[in-house]
């Protein structure tokens, strides 16, 4: 895990070091001596290898660098926007899992009925939708044609509301992004629950339970369901980085002030300290998520632990 992280940090750093220009090069009007002065101030004139060690030792001591565009520490910046992304991500996660679980299990139980076929087709459509196209269609339909939901942003323009009205206002702006994210991720998860449930329903202990004369409800909800959702907890651990990463495309389309948009903006303004530290943070979260998945799986399934 630690070597992987070191490798990740090296790759990220040298990708950025390979960029021929930096933030200050974007300002055409700076005279050469001032440019050199500014570069020296931010340590951009040092050799690449020593810049790597300066960066990485900073990261280890909790200093993620300094955003050149926003003129504030990257940690402050991330902290400001990450929670906007987090709240959308966590809501859509809850919706996705609840709906996928219910629909997946129902369609497994009613396998090969018209309901099941409808769900199967729906799953394919959901899995194949390009995120930005679906988002645009949603805006066109709900915000422009029907005009019942806001087009984008987090609050109305010039709004000064506080308290409950503020919460309601933000909530209204969240409906479209949250449903977009939910729709995008619901397909594969529903499929996962459906096939998991079908596999479990074929097992011998289910036949035993039915042979004992248990009610079908008990068989499905007590015996089958538990075994079907068990492997899914590892998937939940893989969602960890997604909670903080921000949805770049969704945030871009709905103009949501989250971390994904900051990333795109940082690319456009060459604000590389932000991008470097944030990408490293995401990679760390991904690795932690994988570790958590392993631990959870061993906890949930004792058979794994024997190895």
């Amino acid at each position: 895990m630690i070597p992987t992280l070191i490798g990740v940090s090296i790759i990220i750093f040298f990708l950025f070091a390979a960029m021929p220009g930096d933030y200050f090069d974007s300002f055409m009007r700076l005279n050469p001596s001032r440019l050199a002065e500014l570069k020296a101030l931010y340590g951009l004139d040092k050799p690449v290898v020593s810049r790597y060690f300066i960066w990485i030792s900073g990261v280890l001591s909790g200093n993620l660098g300094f955003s050149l565009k926003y003129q504030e520490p990257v940690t402050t910046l991330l902290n400001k926007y990450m929670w906007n992304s987090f709240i959308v991500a966590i809501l859509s996660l809850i919706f996705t899992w609840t709906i996928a679980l219910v629909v997946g299990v129902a369609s497994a139980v009613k396998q090969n009925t018209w309901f099941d076929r409808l769900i199967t087709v729906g799953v394919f459509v959901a899995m194949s939708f390009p995120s930005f196209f679906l988002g645009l269609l949603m805006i066109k339909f709900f915000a422009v044609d029907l005009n019942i939901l806001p087009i984008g942003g987090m609050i109305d323009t010039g709004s000064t509301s506080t308290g409950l009205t503020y919460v309601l206002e933000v909530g209204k702006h969240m409906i479209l992004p949250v449903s977009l994210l939910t729709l995008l991720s619901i397909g594969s998860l529903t499929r996962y629950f459906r096939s998991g449930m079908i596999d479990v329903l074929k097992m011998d202990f289910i036949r035993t339970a039915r042979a004992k004369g248990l009610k079908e409800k008990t068989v499905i909800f007590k015996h089958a369901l538990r075994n079907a959702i068990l492997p899914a907890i590892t998937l939940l651990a893989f969602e960890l980085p997604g909670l903080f990463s921000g949805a770049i495309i969704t945030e871009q389309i709905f103009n949501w002030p989250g971390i994904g948009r900051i990333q795109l903006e940082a690319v456009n303004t060459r604000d590389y300290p932000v991008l470097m530290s944030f990408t490293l943070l995401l990679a760390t979260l991904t690795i932690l998520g994988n570790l958590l998945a392993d631990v959870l799986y061993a906890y949930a399934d004792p058979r794994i632990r024997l190895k």
Partner: protein
Amino acid sequence: MLFKNKLETKTSSLWKQNLRHFKKNKFALGGFFFIVFMLLFSFVGPLVSPYLPDKLDALMINTPPNFTHWMGTDQLGRDILTRLMFGGRISLTIGIASMTLSVIIGTIMGAISGFYGGIIDNIIMRFADILMSIPSLPLLIILSALMSEWKIPQQYRLYIVMLMLSLVGWPGLARLIRGQILSLKEQSFMDAAEVLGLSDRTKIFSHLIPNTIPLLIVIATLGVAGAILTESALSFLGLGVTPPTASWGNMIDAANSFMDFQKRPWLWIPPGAALLLTVISINLMGDGLRDALDPKMRR
């Protein structure tokens, strides 16, 4: 000789069996035919179309769909239908080419890693782990930024995008193939190969990799869909294939201007719909292939 003949008839009948299974799946077959249609549409269509993709027509700006321009024209008077065909060329080529490259790299890396084990395995897999732990969209965005910084000429961006997509795509594939090779290695036909004194190369390329082909076909098919989606997302953000080269992604980019978005849906809905239908078809076909090729999935 006799033995060889027997083997051949057996494999061909297995493939026939698989084909029969695939044909029975109406969704998968429908997907297959749609993809064939889309390939014809994008590669043969432009030959039939009376318009050129970059031909400007100042008198026909922003016309809605009509009989001369079936899908209307854009702000420069270019025919949308023709651009859609050329965009399809780019999107399909990128999807297929980048997946082919990922499959080649991933299979070779995975096979070598699984076959030799030990330190080689460790190095390849750690490298794959590193690439896999960086979230792919941010990584692709950074790579695209790098591409822009180095002032890669617009007509070469296409190839760089392919390379980028396969760079992100191969580690997952390598891991899958490695797992397959690890279990195949333990089977008795590999003992036979050992006894025959075959070289490592023959073992890997003639005995181990062919056994992973069913899995590879499925993964590659589904991977093409993923690559097409990623390319379109990058192009939509202005980071992939850039205008004037048309790709479905950068055609949808028209929706970023509010007037076009609201008043001229014919600019961005056709490429979006083409993208959606193509990806659905590929996914349906991939799923059908999985059912046909994987005996464990058969009901």
